[in-house]
């Protein structure tokens, strides 16, 4: 009897959430996928400057974010689109950032994907790898100091475990028993460097040993596994039992970014292996198998999402760039005399047409 033939409902994973919730989960994952596909295309068409896809990591991201509370702090890297969506960040806000337009909450200051949403306690991402890991410790410490029962969650990759701030963040969190859930998406690659050349440790989770708290490796393409692990780690953290490192084993299906060509360093076979483990397909087939919904329903869901994304993009593309003089804002809480002078000169150049927005 083949594995497929033996599949009965009893072989399905114990659902971590009631079916209506799982449908929402699936919808969020599918929305992330739809945005991803659209943006990769927009970039190829020259309409978007750059893009960092997350394809393949939807279960890891949604699984983690679903286990968090609104008061929790998210400290993202640049690939956390599905986390932002799960947090309830409006797609419009995300797209505005990708376009760096006048409605971008970050005022067009950063490359695509480096968004931040104060209202959602979703930190503004930076490119330097790993720096947010220690910020999470400070945020967690501060929140506890002010009596909040929340956690801070730094998101980072396998590559980031080599960074200085992974080391300081893990160590400080251990020492202060800070309520942090370290969430590592081991997607097997750091641009062209494979996981096994990044570090010689047997797993990434084992690195928690060095700091005296638990490390857990989970199947990052299994929504339920990720959700449960994070939920448990969160509970431990708010109960004052200290931090946890979670390694979600997953795969970056696309290129590192639109500037990258993964064919230079990895094989089609590897890609195919992981394609077969697609996290969306996985949750979908579970729900199909349980009869929660049908293939047709899923297809119309996808249709709906794609056209929604399409519409949003259309709206966002109507916006112009931020005001020229916004260049000088937010360096300081208020314009310094020095910048006042530079801004004046800049305005003169604008008037003279020497600088043309």
């Amino acid at each position, binding site marked *: 009897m083949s594995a497929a033939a033996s599949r009965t409902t009893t072989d399905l994973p114990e659902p971590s959430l009631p079916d209506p919730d799982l449908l929402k989960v699936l919808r969020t994952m599918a929305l992330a996928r739809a945005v991803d596909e659209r943006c990769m295309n927009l970039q190829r068409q020259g309409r978007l400057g750059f893009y960092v896809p997350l394809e393949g990591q939807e279960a890891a991201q949604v699984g983690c974010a679903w286990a968090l509370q609104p008061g929790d702090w998210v400290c993202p890297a640049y690939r956390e689109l599905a986390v932002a969506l799960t947090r309830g960040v409006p797609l419009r806000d995300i797209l505005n950032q990708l376009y760096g337009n006048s409605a971008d909450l*970050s005022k067009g200051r950063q490359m695509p994907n480096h968004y931040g949403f104060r209202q959602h306690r979703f930190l503004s991402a930076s490119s330097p790898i790993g*720096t947010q890991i220690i*910020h999470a410790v400070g945020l967690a410490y*501060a929140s506890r100091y002010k009596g909040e029962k929340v956690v801070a969650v730094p998101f980072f990759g396998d590559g980031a475990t080599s960074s200085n*701030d992974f080391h*300081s*963040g893990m160590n400080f969190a251990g020492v202060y028993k800070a309520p942090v859930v370290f969430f590592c998406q081991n997607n097997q690659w750091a641009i062209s460097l494979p996981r096994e050349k990044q570090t010689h440790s047997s797993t990434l989770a084992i690195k928690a040993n060095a700091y005296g708290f638990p490390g857990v490796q989970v199947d990052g393409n299994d929504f339920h596994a990720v959700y449960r692990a994070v939920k448990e780690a969160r509970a431990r953290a708010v109960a004052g039992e200290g931090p946890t490192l979670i390694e979600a084993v997953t795969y970056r299906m696309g290129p590192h970014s639109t500037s990258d060509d993964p064919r230079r360093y990895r094989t089609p076979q590897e890609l195919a292996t992981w394609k077969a483990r697609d996290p969306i397909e996985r949750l979908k087939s579970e729900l199909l198998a349980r009869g929660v919904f049908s293939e047709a329903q899923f297809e119309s869901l996808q249709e709906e999402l794609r056209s929604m994304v399409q519409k949003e993009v259309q709206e966002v593309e109507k916006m112009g760039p931020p005001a020229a003089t916004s260049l000088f804002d937010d360096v300081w809480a208020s314009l310094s005399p020095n910048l006042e002078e530079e801004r004046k000169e800049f305005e003169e150049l604008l008037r003279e047409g020497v600088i043309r927005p």
Partner: protein
Amino acid sequence: MTEATLIQAVNKALHHAMKVDPDVLCLGEDIGVNGGVFRATEGLQKEFGESRVLDTPLNESGIVGMAVGMALYGLKPVAEIQFLDFIYPAFDQIVSELTKFRYRSGGQFPAHVVIRTPYGGGIRGGLYHSQSTEQLFASTPGIKVVVPSTPADAKGLLLTAIFDEDPVLFMEPKRIYRTATGEVPEGDHRVPFGKARIVREGSDVSVFAYGSMVPTAFQARQVLEKTGIHAELVDLRTLVPLDVDAVVRSVEKTGRAVIVHEAPKFCGFGAELAAILAEKALYSLKAPIVRVTGYDTPFPYTLENLYLPSVDRIGRAIQRTVAAG
């Protein structure tokens, strides 16, 4: 008003800030039980507890990064870096994160951290306990750079720093931690940023200094006064924001400029002062702008007194500048 040393004034400022505002926290190496290797934080942990005065593991990137996290929350962390020479492991957190959070997030995530750190030579600290590298920070938009030279300023500028909204690097001239003494106002004494202090007026030449070079330059000025040279000594107090008006005005009056700092000359902070003058006060200048600085080498140990700008060396430069044109 009470008489205090510069380091005591620092301690008073920290104490006052922590007392009036529970959101002020201190963190750093050896600042708790030990009270800091220079005793700047003496007594604070005892009074305010371990949750507000944190002894940290040995990692400056961690200290500043954690402070950034606290500040993103809304607290007012004061991080101590034991010596300026040890700030470099935290450099990425400073130049990539602390100074850029407000900007990169379009103002959504300001991060106000004060980094206190002793700097400068004259204590036989050798290569790694003596450096002055203010130019690294002054050249990075997004962080204010403050260097007091008197106890009253140390307290007043530090309190301004702690209750400011922008990141601040607060450089403490360790060489005069205990030799600089003076009256320090009680309570909430604030000294505004961006206002230089005219230590002594003068008509023949402007001498610009900050931190531990102020008393040295002052001595040089006093010696020359007896020979009929009236130098105007300007204590910059804050390098960022810089009191450009005061700098330009002084040279418009005197027509000559001597710039003093401990840091090496090449690309040091003095270069910016000279550049500002060459742009905004060129036609007032009667003589070439002279910089009296550390040499363009790492900081030595045995020979540090030959390396540092001395009263005599500054005096000679002033004399020559006045004689030059």
